């Protein structure tokens, strides 16, 4: 810590130790704690008091450190998570409880949650759920759905079991301790204090021409190390996640295509960057008329955003089976609808951030990411460097949900480090994170569905337009996935589904949990209710009747002989469906203003890439000292890959999970386990881990020559295998090591067996699907138009629950995001670029959730397991919308169903 000229010291007690900081006037307490006093456990999510991640205690009271002038703590007592975990018994018990309930997923909100909870428990040792909600209402979490946090604070019985951690065991996360103690390092936590920083100059307009002024003069100012523009790009000024659609520049060159697009970056000292006024940067803007929706984008006179994409159509997707038109013409009942949704922001609490440095002439980038090897491949092109000269070391990831698949901070960090030769760091503000990161595609869907009197779906015609924004990102994936999934998990012989991705001057829409399927599910599952009602058939039984089964063809002509668990999911909801509707009827009979409704919806999701290679490689080995090493390259973004992959591997090897040492993703040392996307890590990387474990086991057994079911133990430098013939010990230290120091090693790759789709979308797009059905109970305040979720029952066919606690965690988190999409979330560029105008659910918005785990084992999955990450939010929004209809007779076709919108529907009267 340096005494800066003219700055008075601020002396206070930080976690029991007297310290002195030297904040500039107006510096935030969070900044002083993190950058001068090493308290990187204080997280920055918004710098506006909207997320609570930076919560600390001042003289015992929780406050947002980002809103507190640093000088205000002079003479006071400040407590942060790290100190509390070290010294405070209440905090220590809570930390254990958080781990036992899976209350920390990505861990970025955990410091704020734990610190707030400690303050509560000091005054209220046995709080109720509501007291916990009131105390923790100021901390946002995007992963957990909050219920496990409430359980952890209240101290309900833990889910975890004290078991070896084989598959099926609900063990704690293997990386949980770092999360509850505040030591896990996220994107902005790795750079040393004082490192050069980057500020990005962004377009204030959705579309604008620009000219840059005298950058040399600007860059010559004291404290500025470099100014970067498109001219500084040593390779190609383009990136994108799909090879045929690499269309996004790192820096726009003459014209920007969306608000927030980068045109330049200033690299400078923290003192200069901290006060840099973007208005002083030499750039002249000429605002141009933007295209802001998919309809105007396709008009003949619309300005074309990209060459070769006429009418701004990026690409489309198509699936056809049978003859939808004829079937609809012959159907006894046909229903149709027009459904719309807006941009949804991922709103992970950790904004994109990272650090880069030059080490031995190579550039090393440490950043939060879902796809380290894709980052490497992108930088190879942008930097024009051989990949051997680039290293990607992922930091902890404070939530991803799809948007951290695309590169964000990485090219700016790498270019700045290379240009200056010095370490650099960059953390997006919440505003620039929201402006520049990808979003869920807005959708505009027309759907017609027919059925016979007996309740069989007989024809299905879907057309959907998706606003992919200014650049492709994962838009093509959405366009292709939607027609494959738009049927829902049902038998539909006569089917036609067409999708289009359309460019506009909106932010790039990309991957977001479900890749377009949550949008199409709203249309399909809403109309299924309309159909059932017209037919006079119970909505749940209608779905069960049409549910896909083993041996039945999907709309892509794919026939699964096993593993189709949707019917079991729906059937598991029957008793709740009956009971909840009875209760709703009772409540409604006694209330005129508050109306309760129950809704149900299903969903399915194909795990892994659609008909494309999608391999994962897992390397493992045994060191001379007996340590079992698992190179686990599957990014854990909070969902639990570190734990699930380790459990699978340990089971295959035949050892307790505690004896496995994980080496995480790092492009220098860990093989590519693919991206954390498409619900593929448990299935694909899980299979690679199983194979790696099995191979390692057989190598060892062969060497010792013991039976296949021998029990193995690793001791200091020794391996002991026991079978019916007795114990056999080998001295590892005396054996030959390979270049990695391994005595035994196994590296295995798994790639799901899929087949290409033909022109009609017929083929085998995925080796496995996972299935889901949700039941939602809501209460609508008819006078105010507000919807309160009362309860969810969520049934998920996961094949085999590798870790039931983590399964529940995914289900809860998905439901919270689905609820947000249904009721409150809408990103409007220029209007909701913060977390107080863009609303995500708080701890008071998520009701109790009952999770039903269905295990219809899958022949391809490791130990029968299926993916789960995206499935969890697909049925949520339509289940809520169906429940709202059930409550008040209003069919909301455009989400979110805000109070304003719903009240207008209620006033207009039942439809």
């Amino acid at each position: 810590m340096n005494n800066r000229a003219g700055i008075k010291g601020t002396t206070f007690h930080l976690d029991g130790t007297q310290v002195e900081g030297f904040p500039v006037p107006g510096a935030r307490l969070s900044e002083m704690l993190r950058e001068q006093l090493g308290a990187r456990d204080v997280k920055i999510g918004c710098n506006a008091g909207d997320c609570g991640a930076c919560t600390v205690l001042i003289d015992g009271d929780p406050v947002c450190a980002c809103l507190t002038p640093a000088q205000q703590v002079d003479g006071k007592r400040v407590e942060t998570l790290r100190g509390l975990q070290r010294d405070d018994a209440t905090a220590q018990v809570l930390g254990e409880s958080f781990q036992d309930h899976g209350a920390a997923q990505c861990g970025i909100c955990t410091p704020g949650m734990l610190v707030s909870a400690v303050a509560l428990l000091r005054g209220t040792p046995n709080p109720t759920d509501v007291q916990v909600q009131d105390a923790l209402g100021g901390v946002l979490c995007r992963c957990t759905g909050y219920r496990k946090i409430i359980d952890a604070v209240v101290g309900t019985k833990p889910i975890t079991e004290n078991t070896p951690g084989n598959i099926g065991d609900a063990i704690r996360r293997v990386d949980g301790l770092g999360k509850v103690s505040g030591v896990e390092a996220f994107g902005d936590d790795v750079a040393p204090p004082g490192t050069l920083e980057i500020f990005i100059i962004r377009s204030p307009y959705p579309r604008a021409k620009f000219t840059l002024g005298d950058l040399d003069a600007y860059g010559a100012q004291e404290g500025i190390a470099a100014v970067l523009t498109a001219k500084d790009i040593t390779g190609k000024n383009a990136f994108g996640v799909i090879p045929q659609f690499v269309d996004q520049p790192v820096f726009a060159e003459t014209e920007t295509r969306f608000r927030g697009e980068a045109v330049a970056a200033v690299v400078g000292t923290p003192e200069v960057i901290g006060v840099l006024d973007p208005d002083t940067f030499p750039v002249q803007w000429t605002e141009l008329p933007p295209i802001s929706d998919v309809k105007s984008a396709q008009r003949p006179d619309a300005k074309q955003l990209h060459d070769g994409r006429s009418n701004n159509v990026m690409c489309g997707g198509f699936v056809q089976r049978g003859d939808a038109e004829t079937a609809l013409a012959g159907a006894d009942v046909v229903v149709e609808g027009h459904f719309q949704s807006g941009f949804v922001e991922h709103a992970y609490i950790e904004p994109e951030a990272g650090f880069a440095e030059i080490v031995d002439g190579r550039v090393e980038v440490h950043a939060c990411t879902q796809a380290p090897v894709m980052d490497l491949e992108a930088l190879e092109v942008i930097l024009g460097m051989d990949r051997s000269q680039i290293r990607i070391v992922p930091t902890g990831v404070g939530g991803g949900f799809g948007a951290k698949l695309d590169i964000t901070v990485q090219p700016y960090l790498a270019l700045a480090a290379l240009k200056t030769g010095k370490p650099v760091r960059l953390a997006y503000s919440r505003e620039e994170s929201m402006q520049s990161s990808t979003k869920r595609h807005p959708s505009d869907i027309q759907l017609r569905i027919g059925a016979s009197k007996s309740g069989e779906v007989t024809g299905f015609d879907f057309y959907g337009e998706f606003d992919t924004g200014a650049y492709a990102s994962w838009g093509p994936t959405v366009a292709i996935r939607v027609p494959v999934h738009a049927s829902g998990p049902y038998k539909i012989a006569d089917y036609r589904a067409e999708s289009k991705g359309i460019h506009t001057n909106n932010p790039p829409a990309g991957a977001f949990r479900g890749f377009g399927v949550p949008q199409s599910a709203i249309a399909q599952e809403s109309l299924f209710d309309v159909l059932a009602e017209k037919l006079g058939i119970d909505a749940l039984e209608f779905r069960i009747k049409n549910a896909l089964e083993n041996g039945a063809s999907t709309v892509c002509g794919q026939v699964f002989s096993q593993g189709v668990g949707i019917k079991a999911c729906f059937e598991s909801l029957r008793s709740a469906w009956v009971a909840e509707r009875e209760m709703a009827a009772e409540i409604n009979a006694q209330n005129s203003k508050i109306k309760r409704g129950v809704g149900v919806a299903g969903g399915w999701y194909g795990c892994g890439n659609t008909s494309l290679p999608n391999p994962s490689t897992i390397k493992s080995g045994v060191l001379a000292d007996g340590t079992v090493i698992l190179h686990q390259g599957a990014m854990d973004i909070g969902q639990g890959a570190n734990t699930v992959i380790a459990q699978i591997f340990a089971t295959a090897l035949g050892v307790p999970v505690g004896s496995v040492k994980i080496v995480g993703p790092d492009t220098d040392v860990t093989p590519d386990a693919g991206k954390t996307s498409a619900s593929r890590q448990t299935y694909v990387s899980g299979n690679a881990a199983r194979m790696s474990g099995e191979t390692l086991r057989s190598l060892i057994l062969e060497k010792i020559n013991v039976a296949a079911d021998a029990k193995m133990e690793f001791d200091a430098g020794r391996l002991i295998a026991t079978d019916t013939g007795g114990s056999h010990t080998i001295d590892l230290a005396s054996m030959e090591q390979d270049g990695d120091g391994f005595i035994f090693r196994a590296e295995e790759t798994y790639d799901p067996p899929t087949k290409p789709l033909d022109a009609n979308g017929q083929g085998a797009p995925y080796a496995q699907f996972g299935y889901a059905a949700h039941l939602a109970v809501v209460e609508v305040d008819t006078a105010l138009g507000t919807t309160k979720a009362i309860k969810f029952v969520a049934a998920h066919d996961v094949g085999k629950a590798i870790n039931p606690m983590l399964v529940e965690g995914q289900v809860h988190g998905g439901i919270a995001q689905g609820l947000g999409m249904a009721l409150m979330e809408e990103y409007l560029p220029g209007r909701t670029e913060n977390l107080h105008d863009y609303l995500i659910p708080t701890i008071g918005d998520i009701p109790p959730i009952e999770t039903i785990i269905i295990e219809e084992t899958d022949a391809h999955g490791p130990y029968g397991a299926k993916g789960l990450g995206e499935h969890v939010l697909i049925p949520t929004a339509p289940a809520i919308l169906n429940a709202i209809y059930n409550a008040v007779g209003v069919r909301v076709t455009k989400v979110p169903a805000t109070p304003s919108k719903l009240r207008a529907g209620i006033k207009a009267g039942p439809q």
Partner: protein
Amino acid sequence: MYHAPTELNDALRTLSEEGGQVVAGGTDVYPSAKQGKMPTHFLDLTRISGLGGISHHQDSIRIGATATWTDVIKSDLPAAFDALKQAAREVGSVQIQNSGTIAGNLCNASPAADGVPPLLALDASVELTSMTRGSRRCPLSEFITGVRQTTLLPDELLTAILVPPPPVEMGSAFEKLGSRRYLVISISMTAAMVSCDDTGKIEQARIAIGACSPVALRMPLLEASLIGQTPKDVTIDPDLFASLTPIDDVRGSTEFRLDVVVEQCARAVKRAANL
């Protein structure tokens, strides 16, 4: 410079001589800070002796300039303050309530300031103090003049909120409508204070509505219409809301706000009457 004086006179002198960004809880100062446009001179009021707390006097209840929402929640106050306490519990989160001040909420003059309707109902005034002119009192209804606009002069500090002792028989309630449970900016809000006679009919009523006009408003015609009504069966005449001019924005349409505020008033009146 960062000034954190301990005496009010020092603060007033600094303000008149050097100006600077006045800060207490920071809950509005920091969220509105723009990159590169942060002030460099600050005047922190939180260490000034006698400026905090809530005190009872003969002619008023005095809420000091640095009293926080939490201070209000924890104070022993008459039932007429229940609306203010309920509003305090709905401001942001516990973190915001622990830092943010009621005085700052008034000076920030947001149309959606949660503190304003309850204080309007309480007939609150503000005490504005300057180095050269001493203190003046201004009714709250005249202090906030528009969106982010007040009559506070550059050399003045809002040193206290003064509430005349409310009738002991009056109860109060606050209704806030938002799109989620916590951390939410009001779509509309209503503060009601009522008392009933021996027959259970309303004999005194005060209503103030926020987030439905540039400045929160008392509703005199509506108040008059409530006299003699029974809270349980209260009817609210939508025609008496003509003074409201709600905006049409992401949180709700104009029509929606005008619609729900009627219901909100009815609920607030009932709760204020302890129903």
